[in-house]
């Protein structure tokens, strides 16, 4: 039997790329700060903060969805993920890091003097609006802060616990009974994480963090929609790391079968995302209530007065629905590394664009004319690349610190002989 490369060594070119991406990201942030953030006009400042908010929340929720992928497959005893489990574990190390960035940004927005993004955080706004008053038991500074801090620390702590559990088998082979107990402990922790996940990403967290940018508007489908929008790029992120590592000669036990299943996840949840996207749109279009349609008026406009976000709105649908359904449908394309790499990059960008149109139209809206506008988005895109660099850096660093394969995991054989 050929030996398995267990130790990941970071290539120089890889670290150059991750450092370079982080550097241009920070550079772009500085440019944004000088051109917008340092201005005295609050609306100009908000454009700078919105960029940070959108990027940090998107990548936080994506890396956290990698945790969800790990825990959901563990809870359902899906053994097939074990050969590349260490990759998902390494990506999930990014959750606390990006979580701290997001928390700082959000707390500045809530407790700072600028309330353009979170209008509900301004007591004057709340006094004038009946809607905000009736939402205030949920949408207030205290609950926002406590819940945000609690949830992000729970994600980080449970993530650390699960990674530690997985590391605990590295040096000692398990007996049959120990293996059973190990599987059980894993299942319990995955279940605890999923309960936290259901109370956070699946319900309250997107309402607090993202939907409250449009504080007067509400949609009960919003959290599911946000979750679907982060789960697809999470699978894409895992797949793209697997392809990179296989090209470097690692992960010998992971093969086309595993990649095929990840491709199925990307395909299936792209359709699921479209289902939620469309359901949210159609119900609002159908009932035609003014307080509900404002969200889509900002993004789509009316036939006589189209919104500047109309192009992004439809590009979003083309990238995240039409492209996956046409390209990923065939079995062969899910097993082709080139097609998969292309689709992974496209979907990570596509859902970044989705988050862009969730955050920016509300922030850029002029309160007097009620007109919204698209800022120079290339800068936000490069800030996003900075976060990609951060994820690349953290993932490689944590991968190089543990064996690439969980060699004593009870489900390892099941994963090696996995067949779709």
């Amino acid at each position, binding site marked *: 039997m050929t030996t398995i490369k267990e130790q990941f060594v970071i290539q120089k070119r890889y670290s150059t790329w991750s450092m370079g991406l982080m550097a241009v990201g920070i550079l772009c942030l500085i440019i944004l700060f000088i051109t917008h953030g340092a201005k005295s006009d609050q609306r100009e400042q908000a454009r700078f903060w919105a960029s940070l908010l959108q990027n940090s929340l998107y990548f936080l929720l994506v890396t956290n969805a990698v945790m969800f992928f790990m825990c959901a497959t563990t809870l359902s005893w899906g053994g097939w993920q074990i050969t590349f489990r260490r990759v998902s574990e390494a990506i999930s190390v990014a959750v606390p890091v990006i979580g701290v960035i997001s928390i700082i940004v959000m707390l500045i927005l809530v407790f700072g003097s600028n309330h353009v993004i979170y209008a509900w955080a301004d007591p004057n706004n709340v006094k004038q609006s009946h809607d905000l008053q009736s939402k205030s038991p949920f949408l207030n500074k205290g609950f926002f802060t406590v819940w945000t801090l609690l949830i992000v620390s729970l994600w980080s702590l449970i993530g650390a616990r699960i990674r530690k559990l997985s590391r605990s088998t590295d040096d000692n082979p398990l007996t049959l009974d120990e293996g059973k107990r190990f599987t059980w402990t894993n299942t319990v922790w995955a279940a605890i994480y999923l309960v936290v996940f259901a109370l956070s990403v699946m319900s309250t967290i997107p309402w607090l963090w993202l939907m409250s940018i449009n504080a007067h508007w509400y949609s009960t489908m919003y959290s599911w929609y946000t979750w679907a929008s982060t789960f697809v790029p999470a699978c894409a992120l895992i797949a793209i790391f697997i392809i990179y590592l296989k090209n470097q000669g690692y992960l010998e036990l992971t093969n086309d079968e595993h990649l095929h299943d990840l491709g199925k996840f990307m395909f299936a949840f792209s359709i699921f995302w479209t289902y939620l996207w*469309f359901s949210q749109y*159609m119900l609002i279009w*159908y009932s035609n209530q003014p307080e509900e349609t404002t969200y889509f008026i900002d993004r789509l406009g009316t036939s006589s007065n189209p919104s500047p976000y109309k192009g992004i709105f439809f590009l979003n649908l083309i990238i995240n629905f039409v492209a996956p359904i046409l390209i990923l449908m065939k079995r062969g394309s899910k097993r082709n590394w080139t097609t998969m790499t292309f689709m992974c990059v496209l979907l990570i960008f596509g859902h970044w664009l989705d988050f862009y149109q969730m955050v920016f139209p509300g922030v850029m809206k002029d309160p007097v004319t009620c007109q919204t506008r698209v800022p120079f988005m290339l800068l936000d895109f490069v800030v996003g690349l900075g976060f990609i660099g951060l994820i690349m850096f953290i993932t490689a660093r944590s991968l190089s610190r543990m064996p690439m394969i969980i060699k004593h995991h009870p489900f390892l054989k099941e994963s090696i002989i996995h*067949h779709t």
Partner: protein
Amino acid sequence: MAIKKFVVGSFDDEAVLFPAVRSVRRSGYKMHDIYTPFPIHGLDKAMGLKDTSLDTAGFIYGITGTATALGFISWVFTYDWPLNIGGKPHFSLPAWIPITFELTVLFSAVGMFLTFCYLCQMAPFVKKDHFNLRSTDDLFVMALECTDRTNEAEAVACLERVGAKDVKIDRRETRWWLGRYDKDTKMFGMKETEPVA
């Protein structure tokens, strides 16, 4: 009728079957099919079967469903019987998407089901000849077709060498027919092999 001559070998172990398939293919015999009581992962690849075209058929059925739904609804609501529903335009795509989706699913599901039955030659009252009835229970049955260039004795020896438990030469109807087994075996003049009770 297409009654053909086959060399039929029965295996009772998957671990024997896979190397056997490989060496029989390498020997160049024309493999008719392998009958197994349950689906075996990887056997299609080992036998060198082509990928199914059922997915392409499903795609075409789905597109047909989409076109039917969109075409019919838009004809009804814009031309044949326009109704004012809540002040919405007559051509209002979002409201039609759910029905279009349902018809796409319905057409592709029913179409693929029927196509699958056709490809597998399965339908009510349709009968197929069995090589060995135990292939529905506990045996893997491999049938090699005898062409005019096949040396039957050699083929039998080959199957025995690769581990078949029971090898025999058989004449079987390869296509389907309507009717009942007990009468039809007589009809095809197949006296030498009695149907298994």
